[in-house]
């Protein structure tokens, strides 16, 4: 734990050194800070993660905060590792990415708050005192809010930040309420001791759990609280969006996991809430991602989907706990944890890739990109690797965590209880749908953005020359590949956490999972063998032949240009026809003004179902109620006095009447 403190201290020092140096050097200092801090902090984190020990330290911080208990158990150690990993790669990435912004007035604000964001998250996962927890939680929201504002002079950036912060406030209130209810019932301020609250069979315990779930769900981006995500991510600089999406969302997951570990025998309402919300989240997330044309928004929606998948894992964990089926619940939590890890590896990778492309081309609209692969081959191939992983296709990491969830659901199908079977079959179907839709989504991204021909005319001499950003992406790609090919070893990362999550899990159960993962790994290598075989066969066959390079078939048009290429919107058109209920389309028709008009544009955009039918109307309703009272400050002194008098006399009369 001393090393952990040291690592916090390093960040603290680094942040303050950062305040006093030139903008150009800040990213380097941050990078060194993060490297040192992670190197120091990883030691206790990994130690606890692999040994399963729990270490605790108690500090006294005087009146308002009270005794601070920092407790590092495998769950917090797991998230610590995620944070350290995320902070390293995003700091590396930031070195190149932020070069362009070094004369931006918000530069030092963003760099300062990003460091503090990491610091607050590191504290968050070990904090036990609810008051301090909430403080750190708000600090996290605040610093991430500030980190978004690099391009604060843009209106949409500010709007996104505003919306984000308001959502965070709502989340904060829900968590606060939940905490206070528990702390009121248990007369304690330590989070670990809330476990007793859930075991005490209190009347409200499942309501409190659901409240907490929703509170953390706002942070994690579950539907219907997901709306801030597709706005905040595109607005923020790429290293921040990568970090936010990869790591910060997991803080919500951390909260949900922490409290689901406490549930010994969850009520059916709790299980079904978690599962149902997760299904909707995953399905809608990926559905909206498919129709998105802003690459960062698309990735944000895909984050929502992945959060939904993690949520499904947690739901299965609770389901197994409820019906005392250890295998289901063990596999479920393993899947959730592993997917958390994987997502925090491949999502930053994708964001970094998108960020690099954005830096080179200055557009995030995939309809305007195309053919990037030829200019930025390394970035693009790593982007493709990330896409394969995120679509959950075999060989790379995403498949492995989804496989664990499938295993869990299969286990559920075999169960003799019809409830479990039914839920599991729904889960399998949902996962399958998500998988295929992710495939559609990412083939669209790659096909339209990276492949084909350049769509815009201006063609800067783009080159893969950003060393630091490539380095950060390479690190992530290596992890993806390792996890994909050696799932049986990578699952050791979560072994202690899983065993920690419930008292009834046994080591042998966990080892049985490893055995089946070993086989998966074996098959992956078989695939590689077959692939190499066919590939060499093809190379041999083509060896002595002339390679004919010709233009492609274009329906008889002899001068096919990039304008004739298939667009992202048309690519997903067939699906749009099917799912038109959920996709609220908004067409902006730009009117013809002159007598001899030059061009007519129709711009289509998509509105969020929940935003349109749930959030906007309720906000509008609130506004309307408020507007009814807007006439009270009309400037007339007489009116003011009249109102006061009416209030006074009415209350007087009521008082006397009684």
């Amino acid at each position, binding site marked *: 734990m001393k090393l952990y403190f040291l690592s916090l201290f390093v960040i603290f020092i680094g942040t303050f050194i950062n305040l006093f140096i030139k903008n150009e050097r800040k990213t380097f200092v941050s990078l060194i800070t993060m490297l040192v801090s992670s190197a120091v902090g990883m030691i206790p984190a990994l130690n606890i993660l692999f040994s399963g020990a729990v270490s605790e330290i108690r500090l006294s911080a005087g009146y308002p905060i009270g005794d601070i208990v920092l407790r590092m158990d495998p769950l917090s150690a797991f998230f610590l590792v995620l944070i350290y990993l995320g902070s390293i790669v995003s700091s590396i990435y930031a070195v190149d990415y932020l070069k362009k912004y070094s004369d931006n007035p918000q530069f030092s604000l963003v760099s300062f708050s990003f460091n503090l964001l990491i610091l607050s998250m590191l504290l968050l996962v070990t904090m036990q005192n609810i008051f301090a927890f909430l403080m750190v939680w708000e600090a996290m929201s605040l610093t991430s809010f500030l980190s978004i504002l690099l391009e604060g002079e843009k209106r949409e950036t500010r709007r996104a930040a505003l919306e984000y912060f308001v959502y965070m406030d709502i989340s904060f209130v829900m968590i606060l309420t939940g905490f206070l209810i528990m702390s009121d019932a248990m007369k304690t301020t330590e989070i670990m001791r809330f476990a007793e609250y859930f075991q005490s069979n209190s009347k409200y315990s499942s309501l409190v759990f659901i409240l907490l779930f929703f509170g953390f769900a706002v942070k994690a981006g579950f539907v219907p609280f997901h709306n801030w995500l597709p706005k905040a991510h595109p607005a923020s600089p790429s290293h921040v969006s990568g970090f936010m999406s990869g790591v910060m969302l997991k803080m919500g997951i951390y909260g949900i996991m922490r409290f689901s570990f406490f549930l010994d025998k969850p009520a059916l309402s709790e299980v079904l809430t978690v599962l149902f919300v997760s299904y909707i989240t995953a399905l809608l997330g990926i559905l909206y991602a498919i129709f998105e044309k802003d690459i960062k928004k698309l990735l944000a929606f895909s984050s929502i989907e992945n959060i939904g998948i993690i949520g499904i894992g947690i739901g299965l964990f609770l389901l197994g706990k409820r019906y005392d089926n250890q295998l289901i619940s063990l596999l479920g939590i393993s899947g959730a944890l592993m997917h958390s890890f994987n997502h925090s590896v491949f999502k930053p990778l994708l964001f970094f890739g998108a960020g690099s492309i954005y830096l080179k081309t200055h557009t995030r609209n995939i309809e305007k990109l195309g053919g990037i692969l030829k200019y930025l081959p390394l970035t693009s191939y790593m982007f493709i690797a990330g896409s394969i992983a995120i679509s959950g296709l075999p060989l790379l990491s995403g498949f492995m965590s989804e496989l664990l969830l499938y295993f869990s659901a299969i286990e559920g199908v075999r169960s003799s209880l019809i409830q479990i079977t039914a839920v599991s079959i729904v889960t399998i179907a949902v996962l399958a749908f998500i998988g295929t839709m992710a495939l559609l989504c990412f083939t669209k991204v790659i096909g339209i953005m990276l492949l084909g021909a350049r769509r815009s005319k201006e063609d800067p001499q783009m080159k893969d020359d950003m060393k630091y950003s490539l380095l950060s992406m390479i690190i992530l790609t290596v992890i993806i590949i390792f996890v994909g090919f050696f799932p049986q070893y990578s699952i050791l990362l979560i072994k202690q956490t899983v065993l920690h999550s419930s008292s009834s899990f046994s080591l042998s159960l966990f080892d049985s999972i490893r055995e089946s993962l070993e086989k998966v790994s074996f098959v992956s290598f078989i695939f590689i063998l077959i692939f190499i075989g066919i590939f060499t066969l093809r190379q041999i066959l083509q060896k002595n032949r002339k390679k004919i390079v010709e233009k492609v078939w274009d329906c008889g048009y002899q001068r096919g240009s990039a304008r004739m290429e298939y667009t992202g919107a048309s690519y997903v058109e067939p699906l749009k026809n099917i799912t038109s209920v959920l996709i609220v389309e908004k067409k902006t028709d730009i009117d013809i003004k002159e007598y001899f008009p030059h061009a007519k544009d129709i711009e289509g955009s998509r509105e969020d179902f929940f935003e349109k039918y749930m959030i906007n109307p309720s906000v509008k309703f609130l506004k309307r109620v408020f507007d009814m009272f807007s006439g009270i400050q*009309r400037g007339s002194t*007489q009116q003011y006095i009249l109102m006061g008098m009416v209030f006074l006399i009415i209350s007087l009369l009521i008082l006397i009447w009684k």
Partner: protein
Amino acid sequence: MYYGLLVLFALTVIYFSVTSRLRAYVNALAAQGVILFLIVLVNMKETNFQSVILILIETIGFKTILIPYILNKIIYQNEASREIDAGLSNFFSILAMIAIFSFGFILSFWTKEVLEYSNPFHFGVAFSSIIAGMYIILTKKRLITHIMGYMVFENGIFLFSLTLLKEMPLIVNLGVLLELFMIIFVSGFFVTKIKESYNDDNIDNLTDLRD
């Protein structure tokens, strides 16, 4: 005698709704000062020289002489003599005053048991005067009239304190008077200023600050 004075006081209040001349308002206020002094004298049980002097200063000195003097000066400075025609006619104002007084009396008889005061008529006049002061403030347009309405309001409170209280502590009484004087002074200053800025002391000018 006592009841007569109360009726007289009520009449001065109603007088506000009969006329629109500002000087008449000031005179009514001065008259109210005298009536209040008499009411206190009549009501006083043990004669105490110190408190008689105090009351004298309070009612005659301030309410009859000093404040009307200031008000007259302001009226003179502002070259205003009549209240601006409000939307409500005097006829309606009288009706409203009658309604206020009736309400006051009904309330005072109704709450006699609850509030345990000795003289419901006195209470009614006092209560009605307070509301009437408010009514003047709420319906008249000139700021100077508002100040006078406030004076009526204050006199009503004075009357009110007489019905319920044997006497106010000395220090409070003095303080109240000082305050009253200062308020009139400051308000008068502002009325003059507002007149300078807007060429008019109509309350409707002062609605720029709004949301």
